[in-house]
């Protein structure tokens, strides 16, 4: 990331050998490089877990298909779920937080650069451990194996008797290690936002992206730690003969479910809140209006953060909790929809009356709004204990959470990549390829996940490796699989666009979108020190103030 901010005339800089460049990247403590490493690492796992999803869909394309064995099918959905949540979703959002937060608050780096590097390499080790189980799970002399206990790994499936070998241990260690990495990064984000802001950047002037990542990091501290504790207990059970989840000795399988979902539900908000942050930065810029209802956005985010900590057992309506618990978790689940709805209205309010520019990032944002709304509505349906008892463990649930995670998180991540790619690389993405990618992915997404609700309603259970013909599921499953392949083609186009534009794209300049936050005040890509002189801000849109000295925002705050 050579700086073009300061050039010394008359000094010739030789091209560095690639080993030096590699060494610089591996030993880097620069928040921008670590952010890029996080993002590339996550994109790698997006492709790996995407291929797993395609194999799953090939297997389910036709009834009585024999593309993979039942055992392999179990391993595939376990790896797909674990990878997408822990090694694609979290790292890519941490990557953007790493890259953008210091730039947006006018800092030169994160609060703890070395902790930052340490956390990244821990996460990387976690992903490596998970996939090392493919060769090492039965010892090196044995055939490969992989975890096959599902991403939530319910007891007693994880007991030694039912999971011999080490595949479950690699799963446990992978999550434990990457969990430590997540906690380290979360602490770093909080310390950066609270302690490294440039002069004048009061909390109520921070870009919403910084605010939302602050809430996300706080949730990581409270939600990922229980998973760490539960994984430690599982290791004690498996290696030291403990009885935490051993029902033969009085232990409880339901306790594991509680511990897992105390992590698991806040986790989906940890994944979606940074996506809300992308929306809150991108929609105003392409609507040419400041964000509507800034304080309400912050309040709604904090509200989601608190309420989402008390909804976890809506994943467990069918295990036989008492009616008071069912009612409580139904009510809290409904309640979390309220602040989320407020946010959607705020984004619509931002677009309302704006001069909307339909650039590729904005297209992804608009699709996000529609899709996340639908995902939220099926979420409210499933949040009702009576309804969930009918449809739990069916494809309706699979359709619901893929609608949030693909229709929500993945679309938002594409929006973010298209929006900040010029800042990160200094080149514009190709607009035509981008639009093609958007429309293909949109069509593939809706073909797959709109239709997936229906086999669920018709009674198709999740996690089955095949099914009987003549239940009305055949055509739907075929179309769902075809949609999956359309999405895969769209992602290939996207990757091609990333690579082609990196070499051939038009030069971006400092501020290609005419935006208002501080990252656009520095060069693209930013120099290692970010800002030659630390900026001072007097409003929520510091670049607007610079560009419009006759009518700055600071006059109205």
């Amino acid at each position, binding site marked *: 990331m050579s700086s073009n901010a300061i050039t010394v005339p008359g000094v010739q800089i030789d091209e560095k050998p690639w080993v030096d460049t590699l060494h610089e990247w591996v030993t880097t403590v620069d928040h921008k490089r670590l952010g890029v490493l996080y993002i590339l690492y996550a994109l790698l796992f997006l492709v790996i877990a995407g291929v797993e999803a395609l194999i799953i869909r090939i297997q389910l394309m036709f009834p009585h298909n024999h593309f993979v064995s039942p055992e392999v099918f179990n391993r595939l959905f376990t790896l797909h779920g674990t990878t997408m949540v822990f090694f694609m979703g979290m790292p890519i959002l941490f990557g953007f937080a790493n890259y953008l937060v210091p730039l947006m608050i006018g800092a030169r780096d994160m609060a703890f650069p070395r902790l930052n590097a340490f956390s990244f390499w821990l996460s990387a080790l976690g992903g490596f451990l998970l996939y090392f189980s493919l060769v090492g799970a039965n010892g090196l002399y044995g055939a490969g194996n992989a975890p096959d206990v599902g991403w939530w790994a319910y007891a007693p499936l994880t007991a030694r008797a039912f999971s011999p070998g080490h595949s479950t241990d690699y799963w446990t260690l992978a999550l434990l290690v990457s969990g430590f990495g997540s906690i380290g990064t979360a602490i770093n984000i909080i310390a950066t936002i609270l302690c490294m802001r440039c002069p004048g950047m009061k909390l109520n002037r921070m870009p919403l992206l910084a605010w939302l990542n602050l809430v996300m990091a706080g949730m990581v501290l409270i939600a990922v730690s229980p998973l760490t504790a539960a994984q430690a207990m599982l290791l004690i059970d498996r290696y030291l003969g403990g*009885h935490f989840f051993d029902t033969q000795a009085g232990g409880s399988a339901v306790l594991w479910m509680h511990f897992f979902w105390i992590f698991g539900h806040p986790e989906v908000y940890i994944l979606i809140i940074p996506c809300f942050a992308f929306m809150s930065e991108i929609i105003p810029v392409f609507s040419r209006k400041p964000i509507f209802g800034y304080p309400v956005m912050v309040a709604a985010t904090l509200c989601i953060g608190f309420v989402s900590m008390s909804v976890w057992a809506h994943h467990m309506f069918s295990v036989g909790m008492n009616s008071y618990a069912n009612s409580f978790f139904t009510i809290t689940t409904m309640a979390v929809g309220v602040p989320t709805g407020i946010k959607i209205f705020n984004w619509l309010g931002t677009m309302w009356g704006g001069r909307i520019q339909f650039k590729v990032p904005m297209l992804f944002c608009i699709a996000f709004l529609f899709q996340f709304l639908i995902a939220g509505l099926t979420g409210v349906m499933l949040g009702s204990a009576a309804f969930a008892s009918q449809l739990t463990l069916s494809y309706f649930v699979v359709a619901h959470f893929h609608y949030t995670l693909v229709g929500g998180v993945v679309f938002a991540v594409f929006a973010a990549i298209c929006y900040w790619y010029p800042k990160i690389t200094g080149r514009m993405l190709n607009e035509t390829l981008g639009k093609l990618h958007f429309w293909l992915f949109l069509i593939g997404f809706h073909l797959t996940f709109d239709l997936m609700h229906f086999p669920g309603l018709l009674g198709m259970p999740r996690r089955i490796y095949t099914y009987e013909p003549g239940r009305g599921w055949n055509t739907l499953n075929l179309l769902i699989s075809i949609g999956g392949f359309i999405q895969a083609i769209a992602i290939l186009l996207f990757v091609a666009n990333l690579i082609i534009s990196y070499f051939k794209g038009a030069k971006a300049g400092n501020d290609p979108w005419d935006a208002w936050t501080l990252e656009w005040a520095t060069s693209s890509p930013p120099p290692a020190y970010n800002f030659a002189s630390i900026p001072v801000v007097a409003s929520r849109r510091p670049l607007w103030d610079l560009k419009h000295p006759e009518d700055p925002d600071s006059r109205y705050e």
Partner: protein
Amino acid sequence: MSAMANSYPQAPANWALPDRGKVAMAGLIIAESAIFTIFVVAYLFYVGKSLTGPSPREVLETPIFYTICLLSSSLTVHLAAKSLARDRVGAFLGLWVLTIVLGGAFMYGTAQEWHRLIYEHGLTISTNLFGTTYYSLVGLHAFHVTAGLLMLSMVAIFALVGRVGVQHSRRVEVLSMYWHFVDAVWVVVFTVVYVVGR
């Protein structure tokens, strides 16, 4: 860029932000509290659910002396940090070493208790649910005390060779926050294991 930099508005007169070390330690303490909460919940959930003996009532003895040692080390570490902030390095070193001795005494107490439970009562982590939850919760706390002692000892070594001065007082205060946390957790563990759990 430079043209832009010149047009930045005036910096506010008093611009002070919190200390990043303290904020980070507060974050770590929140995360650790969540981990301990899960272990405490597991302990409470499994009280009286063991299918075989021995039970806590039969074998546990309340470690009052060692608890007093650990809790008073919170006071000494606080006074040590205060002394360093006032540049009284001698007093700091004395109180700091006293903290390590008190923490070490507590660890000795835990070791003795575990030795007694294992060799006299045959209670190990795999004996029953009580053993599993007891050794995990108390062991998790003991692990944190040990980590704290290692860090305290590192500072003590630096102080003995004269490398710790008033300029390190903020860092020492961050470490003292951690030690207070370890002590506070013991209050919870003590209540759960030796009062409620029996």
